[in-house]
């Protein structure tokens, strides 16, 4: 009864858009596909929707060969990152469209549509033209349209990415509420995003996708605590996790002329040379720290992102307050050394502060 795919590959030209993707999605759950742009998220969602036919692989849903079911019989819903609505219909007609297509009784359409519009906060907008709405409202209309259908599979392709910061925060909250109340145990929600914070917040199972390949599958917590590879660590952190070439010798970690005592959890690192991973938030300014040079300082919201350099090593740190720096300023920083990760030279997680290891 689950949505099960095995080895889906899609290769329209020379490059793989999907490379042997397999998954097992259970009803009543939220799945987040996390990946950078062009990682194959949209391709995967379109394949599930039936808009693209994979070159090889199998997909089953409710004991049927799902790849043989045409799009219009799949009972799915999809929200695009662009705000896609029917421009020739007004808000009510837009939301009612899938129900009319199913020949639902008019009175019922009326009730369901009004309820759905209410749930996305668009009560009273029924007769507005789509063109008269703001971007956020347009996206709510498409969300309402995808909710009225009671679709068995709800696909959301970066639905928040084209909205401004404030609206995104607000809609993200609303999405969570809608998902927790409005969806039946019968539905699978698949949400794709580039933003690790979104993935963590939705708190479902996360599928990390890169260059069409599934890199890791696990709960949001698991991906955050024990990223399987360097790639996953980069993708699942914003700003990306800092990676430094380091070596370890008799409990001393050395990189770029810095020497620190290795924390206990790195005891099991066998290779002398390894990649040291540390999150931007685990680096702090400190008067008796190591000296780095400022390359760039950006203020984002209430925090400051510092791009720092020391020799060949480049790192990013986030500071929880707004501060001004000039380029080429010298700053002193310290690493929260018991929070560092170790990846071996192939980029596989060797040791994590949370005890995970894939070596």
């Amino acid at each position, binding site marked *: 009864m689950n949505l099960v795919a095995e080895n889906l590959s899609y290769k329209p030209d020379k490059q793989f858009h999907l490379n042997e993707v397999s998954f097992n999605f259970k009803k009543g759950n939220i799945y987040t596909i996390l990946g950078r742009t062009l990682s194959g998220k949209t391709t995967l969602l*379109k394949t599930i*929707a*039936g*808009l693209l036919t994979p070159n090889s692989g199998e997909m089953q849903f409710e004991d049927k060969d799902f790849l043989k079911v*045409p*799009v*219009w*019989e*799949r009972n*799915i*819903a*999809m929200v*695009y990152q*662009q*705000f*896609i*609505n*029917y*421009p*020739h219909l007004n808000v009510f007609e837009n939301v009612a*469209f*899938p129900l009319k*297509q*199913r020949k639902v009784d008019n009175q019922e359409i009326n009730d369901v549509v009004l309820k759905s519009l209410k749930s996305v906060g668009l009560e009273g907008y029924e007769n507005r*033209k*789509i*063109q*008269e*709405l703001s*971007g956020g409202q*347009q996206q709510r209309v*498409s969300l309402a*349209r995808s909710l009225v*259908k009671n679709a068995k599979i709800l696909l959301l392709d970066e639905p928040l990415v*084209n909205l401004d910061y404030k609206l995104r925060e607000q809609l993200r909250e609303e999405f969570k509420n809608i998902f927790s109340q409005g969806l039946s145990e019968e539905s699978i929600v698949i949400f794709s995003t580039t933003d690790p914070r979104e993935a963590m917040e939705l708190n479902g199972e996360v599928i990390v996708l890169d260059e069409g390949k599934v890199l890791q599958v696990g709960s949001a917590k698991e991906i955050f605590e024990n990223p399987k590879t360097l790639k996953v660590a980069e993708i699942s952190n914003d700003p990306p996790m800092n990676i430094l070439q380091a070596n370890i010798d008799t409990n001393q970690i050395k990189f770029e002329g810095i020497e620190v005592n290795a924390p206990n959890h790195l005891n099991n690192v066998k290779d002398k040379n390894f990649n040291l991973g540390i999150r931007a938030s685990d680096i702090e300014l400190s008067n008796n720290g190591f000296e780095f040079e400022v390359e760039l300082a950006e203020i984002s919201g209430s925090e400051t992102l510092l791009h720092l350099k020391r020799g060949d090593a480049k790192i990013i740190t986030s500071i929880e307050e707004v501060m001004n720096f000039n380029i080429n300023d010298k700053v002193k920083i310290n690493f929260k050394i018991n929070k560092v990760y170790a990846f071996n030279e192939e980029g596989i997680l060797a040791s994590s502060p949370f005890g995970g290891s894939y070596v």
Partner: protein
Amino acid sequence: MGKLYKFLKYFFITFWAVFVVAPFLWAISTSFKDFNSVNGGATYIPWVDFEPKLEGWKVLIKSPANGGVDIVEPYFNSLFVTCTASLISIVLGTLSAYALSRFTFKAGFVKNNDITFFFISQRIMPPIVLSIPFFLFLGAINLLDSLIGLIVVYIVLLMPIAVWIMVDFFNKVPREIDETALIDGCNPYQAFFKVVLPNSIPGLIVAGMFCIIFGWIDFFFAFILTFTEVQLLPVKIVALNSSITPWWSLSASALVSVAPLIIVAFIVERYLSKGNLSGAIK
């Protein structure tokens, strides 16, 4: 600067308006003249300069037996041929344009753009190149000098225009709209008729207008492919010109022949300002 600009602006607008409208005024006044008023020097204002007569107009509807030229039948022939050919061109052209815009075709090195160019290339050739093949072709299937033969030829001439305009138009309609329609339970035909077509009305109107104009004003093929049985308006108007040039009835027939285009232009203008695609994708 501002004043000079304003002056120049209105000067040129006025100049252009006079330039465009003057021939019409000339034709209107000439159509009410008779032989004497036309040849008695330049006159413009009726009742003052010359005595208005309806002779020029009457000739157009009188039968040849009564000394008239009877453009009524050619007029309706022209309307019928133009409208039928335009309608068929728009229907076929829109369907092929949609296919060219949405599906990928490949036959060896021939791809979508090549097929689109093939359509348009029919308009690149000078008409004279096509005239002999058309003549032989229609002769072979016994459609020379017939309305159906003319409609066939006009479809060949008009469909490229429809395809050209509609391919461009469909390319601007986001594909995601069709996809959403499919997801919402439409099969591909329903998606086309319920969603894509209603959003393409501005494009359809533009394409239709061009088809009607090009069909209506064509003289060349109407002249070559018809003899006595069937006549179209442009040919008939030219035929008015005999040993003496009947300026009055020529002017009158010119006015009736542009009338449909003026009506079309007014209708189209209203629709064009209404339709737009914003809101599909922002």
